[in-house]
Each structure stands twice: as structure tokens, then as C-alpha cells.
């Protein structure tokens, strides 16, 4: 490794860079489980990406790519793909697929897709159960599951003020996290 690369990595502002990279990794993983195949987590993926910047096939070259964060994001993408993790890229690839043949072709490249679909079903059922009785949150979740994704559209549909939709968005995020934690301790999904 060139010492200039080592020095630049050593001097990087990791305190601000890592939360952004962790967020990037977390929001690019669409598997309905907190732990990924092999027991990995978003933290492991980010740590592996940084390790690869020093050596290996994803070594950072500041001349070709001066932006370290962009380089590490690209490495995270590469790690997620190479480990067969269902991520944003895979979701974008299948979200509009109607043709069964095309779906089968995708499924053949994702041996665990059946398990991922099953986990999604379990987690969604657990989430719906956990918010039963909370009318606003249930209405919000149903709207999202129906395909509404803009807070203003949801506000119009559910007659919940848009500011409240934003609050509920965070509340639902916390509920999702709680449900995933709970399922993790019970080995489901």
C-alpha cells in the first residue's frame, strides 16, 4: 500500500464519515431481519469496506477517486452484491417485474429468496399485530403497504395532518426496530 493512502485514511474524519456509511449500508439492506446471512450486520459490512480500502480488490486509489466516502459506498454495494444480500439494487430490479419468467430468472440467482419472502410475511404480520389498537399508526401502515409513499398523499388519504404523518413515520420506524429485535430473540424470522 502506498503510504499516502495510509496517511489519508488515518487522517479521515471517521467520526462523521462512519455514521453516514452505516446509514447508507442499513438503508441499502432490504432483508427483513436484523442479522444478515452468516450472522453479519450493517456494522460488519462497513468495517469490511474500510478494511478493503487498505488492501485487496477494492483498494482506495485517491487519484482515480478522490472522494473516500464515494469509494467506500461503492465498496459497500459490492460487498452486499457479492454476499447475495437482498438490497436496494435487487428491490429496484424486481419491483416492477410482472413477467413470471423474469421473476423466476431473478429467483434463480437468489437461492434464499423464498426465505426472504417468508420472513417479510412474518415481520409484517408481527408489525401489524404490534400496532393493533393504534388507529393512526395502522392507517399509516396500510397506506404505505398499499403503495402510497409520499407523506402528503398519505395525509390526504388518511386525513391525518402531514406534520403528524412525519411523527408517525418515526414512531413506525421505532416499532419496526422493536419487532425485528423481538423476532431476533425468538429466532423468527
Amino acid at each position, binding site marked *: 500500500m502506498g503510504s499516502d493512502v495510509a496517511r489519508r*485514511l488515518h487522517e479521515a474524519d471517521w467520526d462523521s464519515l*462512519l455514521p453516514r456509511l452505516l*446509514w447508507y449500508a442499513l438503508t441499502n439492506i432490504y432483508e427483513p431481519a436484523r442479522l444478515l446471512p452468516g450472522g453479519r450486520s450493517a*456494522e460488519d459490512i462497513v468495517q469490511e469496506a474500510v478494511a478493503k480500502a487498505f488492501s485487496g480488490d477494492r483498494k482506495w486509489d485517491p487519484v482515480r477517486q478522490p472522494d473516500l466516502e464515494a469509494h467506500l459506498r461503492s465498496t459497500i454495494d459490492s460487498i452486499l452484491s457479492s454476499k447475495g444480500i437482498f438490497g436496494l439494487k435487487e428491490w429496484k430490479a424486481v*419491483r416492477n417485474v410482472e413477467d413470471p419468467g423474469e421473476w423466476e430468472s431473478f*429467483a434463480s440467482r437468489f437461492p434464499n429468496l*423464498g426465505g426472504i*419472502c417468508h420472513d417479510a410475511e412474518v415481520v409484517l404480520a408481527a408489525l401489524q399485530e404490534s400496532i393493533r389498537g393504534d388507529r393512526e399508526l395502522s392507517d399509516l401502515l396500510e397506506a404505505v*403497504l398499499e403503495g402510497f409513499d409520499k407523506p402528503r398523499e398519505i395525509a390526504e388519504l388518511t386525513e391525518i395532518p402531514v406534520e403528524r404523518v412525519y411523527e408517525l413515520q418515526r414512531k413506525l420506524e421505532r416499532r419496526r426496530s422493536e419487532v425485528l429485535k423481538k423476532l431476533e430473540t425468538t429466532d423468527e424470522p
Partner: protein
Amino acid sequence: MNRDALGKWCRLQDFLNAAPEGANDEAARLTAEGVDVQGTVDRVKEMVRKAYQADLREQAAREQSEASARAQAADARVAAMSLADVVQMLRSQAAALAFFRDKSPDECSEQDLRSLLADIMAAEESDAEAEDT
């Protein structure tokens, strides 16, 4: 295979991942998701520090090895020269002129003269390499 459930789950992910306008609080949201942010920062910093130190050690060892090779090559070249050529070359070296300010080449042993020239040649080569990089 329940494709519908997967699609719904992914739509929910899209919705929840979209940060509300003006929000820039990844660390807080990550912590709420159970992500060990500070632990990751500490581990990565430690990993980077160790890799940097290893790199510095590697570089120092490499430089030492190169300096040793340069010195050996200069010794060999000087050993192949006649004493008259050694003295002749030393007369044209600024470093040697400073060395001989208070004494003449005649006061030094042949070994001193050869060592001095070899040191000067190795140093010049090192400077030239540094300029090239």
C-alpha cells in the same frame, strides 16, 4: 413464495428510510435501530491506526533495506577504483571539500578516503531517488 409480502416490506423500507425534510440525525436513528455506532467508530479507528503503523514500519524497513543496498553498491564501485581516481573524485565534491577544510587528503588513510567517497555517492543516489518520487 409470497412476492406480495416482499414487495410490501420493501415499500415500507423505502418509506421509513426516507428521512423527513431537514433531518440529519443518522447517528440517533442508527442507535434507535440497535446499530452500535460508537463501537464501530472505535473499532474502525483502531483498525486504521494499526494499519497505518504497520505501513510506516514497512516503509521504514524498505527505506533501510534500500539504503543498505545503495551503500553496498557504492562500496563496490569505489573498491574498483584506483586511489588516484578516488582522490580526484573527492576533489570535485563539496562535501569532501568541507571534510578536508582543516586537513589534506594526505593526512587520511586510503580506507578513510574510500569510505568518504562511497558515503557521498550513496547519499547522492538517495537524494536523486527522492527527487524522482
